[in-house]
């Protein structure tokens, strides 16, 4: 039951993240549903760069009240929508 709740919450977070990335990062020609959960966000994947990484930090802070202070840790967190959503979920759970 707890696992189901976690997965439902992650689905919502992933969907919201995709919408936020497309709109806030001006990802022209890309729609949220075209982004796969495991797509690499940077480099060969969606082609985001270091400036986008800074913008994602602000997006997480504004929309999920989640901070990313350790940029070394950020490399892993920012790998994909899946890793981002998991970080958001776990950080929010830890605050409760």
């Amino acid at each position: 039951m707890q696992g189901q709740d976690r997965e439902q919450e992650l689905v919502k977070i992933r969907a919201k993240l995709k919408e936020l990335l497309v709109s806030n990062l001006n990802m022209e020609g890309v729609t949220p549903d075209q982004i796969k959960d495991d797509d690499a966000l940077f480099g060969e994947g969606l082609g985001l760069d270091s400036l986008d990484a800074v913008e994602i930090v602000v997006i997480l802070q504004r929309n999920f009240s989640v901070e990313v202070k350790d940029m070394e840790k950020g490399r892993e967190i920012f790998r994909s929508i899946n890793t981002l959503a998991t970080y958001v979920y776990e950080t929010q759970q830890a605050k409760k």
Partner: protein
Amino acid sequence: MNIAGMGVVFTRGRGAAALEQALEQGWVAPGTVAVPAGSAPAYVVAPETLADKTVLAKARRADRFTRMAVLAAADALQDSGLAGRLDTSRLGTIVATALGPHTTTFGFLDGILEFGDAGVSPTAFSHSVHNAAASYIAMTLDVRGPTLTVTHFHFAFHQALLLADAWLAEGRCDHVLVGTVDEVGAVMAYASGRLCRTPADGRIKPLAFATAPEAVPGEGSVFFLVSRGEGAGYGRVAGAQLTAVPEPAPEGAVHLLDADGLSHDESGYRAVAREGLPVASYAPLCGSLMTISAFHAAVAALMLRRGRRYAVPVPDGAGDLQVCHESGPAEIRHVFCTRLDCAGNRVTLHLAR
């Protein structure tokens, strides 16, 4: 200073051909822009006009203000036929603006108010400065010469032209991309609605010389590639000074008046209009714009290039003045463009064949 190329982005499209088409077609009703109370009339640039994935390939983060400027500057370079042949280390860029990227600037300020200074978008910050457009132009067109942004409320374009002429005269550059950009956003539309009267039908009447004129905000970008050497396809800039039209006016002259409704009193334009010298204003095609002088310079350049005069889109109120009522071939050798500020200061730009 010769005009070798021209780029225009405005409510009716992009490029010299779009401007010429608008001049031939005449006035069309403006669109609207969202304001807190709903919507307000405005001569806005359509999103499809700014959809160019080739020129803007490196400008994903650019806002509308910058996109308009980059496209107009790129088109001016392309139009000159000198793209790829210029020494870009000897090519300068001067961007003139009255209000800068104020939509982004206010968005950034709203971000601080809403999320605090640590929660504001770094992209919004970097694009909120007036120099962002010039940076994008330099990056997109590989301009390696001097790059500068000039901000002036009333005479930004004239200041930029004088500076371009100085750069060419002192040999700092061989060519200069010089132009203007200003945008309409919710703040500008709101301010215009509060400070100026708005015509019910959206028609600006620049030749009415009203003491309480009506304005409909407009936006766009106009760029010229100027040089001392090759390319005078659009004539030359013979002067941009604090002067009047010479007395007597030279043969084949036309006088464009920058009246567009944004001044509190435009009766001063009637005083500078000369009896017997054809006058015109094309503000109803681009909207009320603090940098309308560049738009009129583009119309002047087309007149000189084509040997053609264009009917004024809204002739209302011109009285006994000699107004260009019909489009057609004409022996145009000089075009004077006069701009007044709210204090009555005057600059007359002189373009000649």
